[in-house]
């Protein structure tokens, strides 16, 4: 990559600057800077709605090696705000490659920066926690003014911004079960895993109510992943309290897991810098087995707030012991913090979708 692009700057809320070059769209964008450690799956990361409002740094230095394609998207478009890489690949190579990373970012209106020492940046975030920042391609930007804006930035209405507004149905081949998938910013592969298992899936908006659910005659509820602070979703939490009373088998992932916990009176906390990668070990307490999982979250359910009456922590992060899953006692529900649907990342916990099927089928009998 001999041709250097236009200069670009990454400005952090603490005033630190990294200079690099522009990739993708030009302009200025502010967001919450997080780092992701997966070594493959950048297209999945880019199209994961959970990154809404965030500027994502890839810790692996070579990004775009296999280009992008139309099969690996996890949503209709890119929701993250900005993208930071050390190096993007001009000559990607893969039989499914349709586009270079740079073109893709441009098409998706994503402002990116390359040529940054992403390890140095990662270490800053690791030490100080998630930090706001901005990428700008302006040569003479007003640093003080931009800093003010950076510091004032907050991700709001995240779920609403990424959720669909109308229900949409997807038919499976076998049509064995009907599942309603709450779209808090769901990843396509959650839907695919359900379709694969013979579930007809109705994707519904985030604010769908218990009454609406009741009318749908469904066998199971899938609470999806999604962006932002779970506590912000007051309306959804209230809805869930009602929905639980319908006693429909429920499986929650990531934000869905957090919202379910909040609806049951448990609490969540913001992690210093979250878990974002494809290598997080999680212990399944029931199986006494450790699985490698794909993760992307900045908030977590506080384990102590899951009372004995409510249920138990079914999954724990093997590294920091944080809560990675809950099995509820009084309702037919279990939720996990990580991503059993993978994409990107390991498929080792896809068995949880099978467990969801068992939960549903047990109900029929």
């Amino acid at each position, binding site marked *: 990559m001999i041709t250097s692009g236009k200069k670009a700057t990454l400005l952090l809320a603490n005033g630190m600057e990294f200079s690099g070059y522009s990739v993708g769209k030009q302009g200025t964008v502010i967001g919450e800077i997080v780092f992701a450690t*997966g070594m493959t799956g950048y297209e999945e990361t880019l199209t994961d709605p959970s990154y809404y409002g965030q500027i994502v740094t890839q810790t692996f230095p070579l990004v775009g090696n296999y280009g992008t394609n139309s099969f690996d998207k996890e949503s209709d478009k890119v929701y993250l705000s900005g993208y930071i890489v050390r190096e993007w690949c001009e000559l990607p190579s893969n039989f499914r490659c349709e586009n270079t990373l740079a073109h893709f970012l441009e098409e998706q209106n994503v402002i990116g920066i390359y040529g940054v020492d992403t390890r140095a940046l990662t270490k800053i975030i690791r030490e100080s926690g998630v930090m706001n920042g901005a990428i700008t391609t302006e040569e003479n930007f007003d640093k003080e003014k931009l800093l003010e804006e950076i510091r004032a930035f907050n991700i709001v209405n995240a779920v609403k911004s990424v959720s669909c507004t109308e229900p949409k149905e997807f038919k499976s081949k076998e049509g064995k079960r009907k599942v309603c998938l709450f779209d808090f910013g769901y990843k396509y592969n959650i839907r695919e895993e359900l379709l694969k298992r013979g579930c007809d899936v109705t994707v519904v908006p985030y604010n769908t109510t218990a009454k609406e659910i009741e009318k749908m005659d469904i066998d199971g509820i899938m609470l999806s992943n999604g962006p932002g602070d779970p506590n912000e979703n007051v309306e959804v939490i209230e809805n869930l309290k009602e929905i639980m009373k319908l006693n429909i088998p429920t499986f929650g992932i990531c934000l869905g897991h957090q919202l379910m916990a909040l609806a049951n009176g448990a609490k969540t906390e913001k992690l210093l810098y979250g878990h974002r990668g494809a290598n997080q070990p999680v212990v399944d307490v029931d199986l006494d087995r450790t699985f490698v999982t794909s993760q992307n979250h900045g908030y977590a359910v506080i384990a102590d707030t899951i009372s004995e009456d409510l249920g138990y922590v079914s999954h724990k992060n093997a590294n920091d012991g944080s809560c990675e899953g809950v099995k509820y006692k009084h309702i037919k529900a279990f939720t996990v913090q990580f991503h059993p649907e993978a994409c990107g990342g390991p498929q080792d916990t896809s068995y949880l979708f099978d467990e969801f099927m068992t939960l549903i089928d047990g109900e029929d009998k």
Partner: protein
Amino acid sequence: MPLRKDLKKVLVIGSGPIVIGQAAEFDYAGTQACRALKEEGLEVVLVNSNPATIMTDKAMADKIYIEPLTLDVIKRVIEIEKPDSLLSTLGGQTGLTLSMQLAKEGFLDSHGVKLLGANPETIDKAEDRQSFKDTMEKIGEPCIPSRVETTVEGSLEFASEIGYPVIVRPAFTLGGSGGGIANNEEELREIALNGLRLSPITQVLIEKCISGWKEIEFEVIRDSKGNVITVCSMENFDPVGVHTGDSIVVAPAVTLSDKEYQMLRTASLNIISELKVEGGCNCQFALHPESMEYAVIEVNPRVSRSSALASKATGYPIAKVAAKIAIGYSLDEIVNAVTGKTYACFEPALDYIVVKFPKWPFDKFVYASRKLGTQMKATGEVMSIGTSFEQALMKAVRGAELKVDSLNMPMMMAMSDEEIKNRIHPADDVRMFAVFEALKRGMSIEEIHNITMIDEWFLGKLKNLVELEKWLADGELTKEKYNYAKKWGYLDSTIENMSGQKIPEEFKRSASYKMVDTCAGEFAAETPYFYSTYDEQNEAKEFIENKDSGKKRVIVFGSGPIRIGQGIEFDYCSVHCVWALKELGYEAVICNNNPETVSTDFDTGDRLYFDPLTKEDVKNIIETEKPYGVVVQFGGQTAISLVNYLDELGVRILGTQADSVDAAEDRERFNEVLEKCGIPCPKGETVFTAEEAKESANRLGYPVLLRPSYVLGGQNMIIAHSDQDVDEYMEIITRTKLENPVLIDKYMMGTEVEVDAICDGKDFVIPGIMEHIERAGVHSGDSISVYPAQTLSQKIIDTIIDYTGKLAFALKVIGLVNIQYVVYDNEVYVIEVNPRSSRTIPYISKVTGVPMVDIATKIMLGETLQDMGYKTGLVPNADYVAVKVPVFSFEKLHNVDTHLGPEMKSTGEVLGIAKTFEEALLKGLIAAGHKILHKGGVLMTVRDTDKAELIDIASKYEELGFDLYATSGTANKLNNEMIATNVVSKISENKPNSAMDVINEGKISYVISTSAKGRLPAKDSVKIRRKAVERGIVCLTSLDTANALADCIAMNKTINDIDLVDITKI
């Protein structure tokens, strides 16, 4: 699950001598395993025939047997030591195969020994071709169409079914020995025959050839609970068809999308789960470049060369974790030593890219076929780490010590476009350089891809380097250009050459260092493991500042890739030096680039720099470390060649100074030293041209020894008997530009003696004198070496002691010195002095009990021999005789003449220890893999000058009951002496009953073959020797060896009659 309570005493089997396909990586794995076991308070019993290893060190195990790795020996060790368990998966294929045999025979059960690591069922499922295929089919993992065959006819039949080309893979052989790709019936006939013979169970797999697919590997770990993780993925630059040990490899895989990556990752986990491996496992896949189709190529249910690479590439200690799993722990119980915060069930995330580059022995074996295929040929490898592929590749190439600092290879630059096109396929050792040259000449990526099937991604990266170099050469050297070149791994000197301009001082920048932490920066790690790059932040510098212990820092330079002449023994020395430094209260810093070794384990030194050992790379490290001193004495020629440069930089060199090294290497200065000491040496001169050489040779009198003045492992050395020999040699050597003169010496055919000594400037100590069985003329590394010397008179020994002291003092040696003598007509002559550690240090340290490297290190830092209780002179002989026997990898290298000479050919060594010389020799020969038979035939074909001397030897074999066979000249001579000898015809005569026929008929147990000239594969003598290799017949190319072997056979003992020795009790 915690440590199993039923384990107290574990037997560990090592991998034996270094051969192609099984090298230092198993010393690394074995050492890690032994340490992991000892950490748990278990008693460790070790058996390994390789004395040059760290794992056979007293610190590593409680009982150590340096004994032949045969079933009988292991059984006896089990009977003596009564271990309760056997760890099978850390000693390479050798250790695994032995363990499996012991288990299958029921020997382990009947002796109450539990098999740890893998069970026979697992091993069979992975290694027996048919059961592997069945297993894969059962779990739905695709295999390549293939069938197990036990005959040549069956092989031909199946091949015609699936179509050519086909790959032949013999079952249970090392590094794929005897395999190959057959394009037609004729080729298959030959390869299948050879493969069937080499396979211990006479089985080959005939397989559809999928050359051109991507080759991807995963390193996987599983525990007894069933937890599974992948440690690392790797992608080969060379597509399927080139053995992975001969491929340039990158980690992690780079051209796979997440879908493909996860598909293969999941397949790996399915495979290891089905095989129920408890420990490490390597899975190799072929992935179709234009679809999601893939096939499992091979699974190794044990630690391997790839797992060593993966460990170094990620910082995840696979062997250590595998050992802990074997004794009961699960992955979620083992803390990741790198972060201290995460557990072993965490998959490493990399934030850099790793390149592995093989090191081939073709500089030594000029007639060997350089073509790369399914048979591994590399002796070693280097690894490099960078923030870009370009940077990592550039570091790997210069670290491989190929005499190039970029991808521009002079040989390629001289070729025509057509020649270049022909060089890019099929693959050989310099293929990448040809590809680079092709790109430079404008050949398109697409065209090269179509010919080579190398992925466009790699070609695109090489093209980047082409573009950069053009840019550098074009116009003024700007700061932007300079910075670009630095980030892509170019040395300042290379940038100056390419741009034709001096780099302005204000541009120049020193490398910064980043940490290898297994987690891409997610957690604060404490690993002192660094690589260089060009960024602002210098993590090594911060590390040093934050952790400043107030201790003085010393850098130890390692020995780079394993090659013939510079093997694992230098790693042994480097590691011992580090240990000694730590013990003395210094901070020991290692710089090395060999991923197979113990020295590059991140917890060997206080800090590890995984970088090449070139001047600039070393200078950068020095700028960051600001060491008190540096050590170059233990890293072989690689490290010692830095000494002048380091001296110029003003760095404190610990031990022998640069000037002394120069005095020993510079011919004239060395002669002055000898003269001053009154020590004779063979007469010699220096010459530049063939004419000068012939004049000089005639003045000295033939035979003469010719060699370049800069020598490593006897590179390009010959003994010339005539003007014609001199002409031939000078023609070869002057093909490349002669910068240094050629040395020509009177060749004295006497007894060769070798001494390693330690000197502190006041006193010197010789732990032992070694005598070579083969007389001078055979390279010391290829000779059978005996300690203590067996035939020298006290007067000679006294002279050697006297000369050693004089030379050590005259050369101002502080530390180690290795001196080679020749005893000729009762006179002692000096052949060579190396003021550094040598190949024999580990073995002599172990058998004499004198920790030479420890002592030398202490001396460098000011202690004296006297302080340590050593007296000047020779240490009294030990009670045992130790015989070091070289081991060759001739089966792996077709067309290489096995005749030993002044040029070193062995890749490794074994040791035999016993009460008598003959017993020790027998052990050594058996350990080296020789089939010692007490009956059969001896085929003799020797050069004229050897014929007279052969008589006594032949008569010994006759008395021992062997049938003698010889070609007419030799046979007549022997028959005239009343030694009944059968006449065989020469191969070239094309008559019945030829030398080749008697070998093929299985009549021959030993071949004694010497020739005045060899090397050319077309010669009869070379053909006979090659045939012996192929048929596994002991072939002796020196009469001295033949004589010693006869004495050994005359004992009429087998290995079972000789006591086993626990060397910790010596």
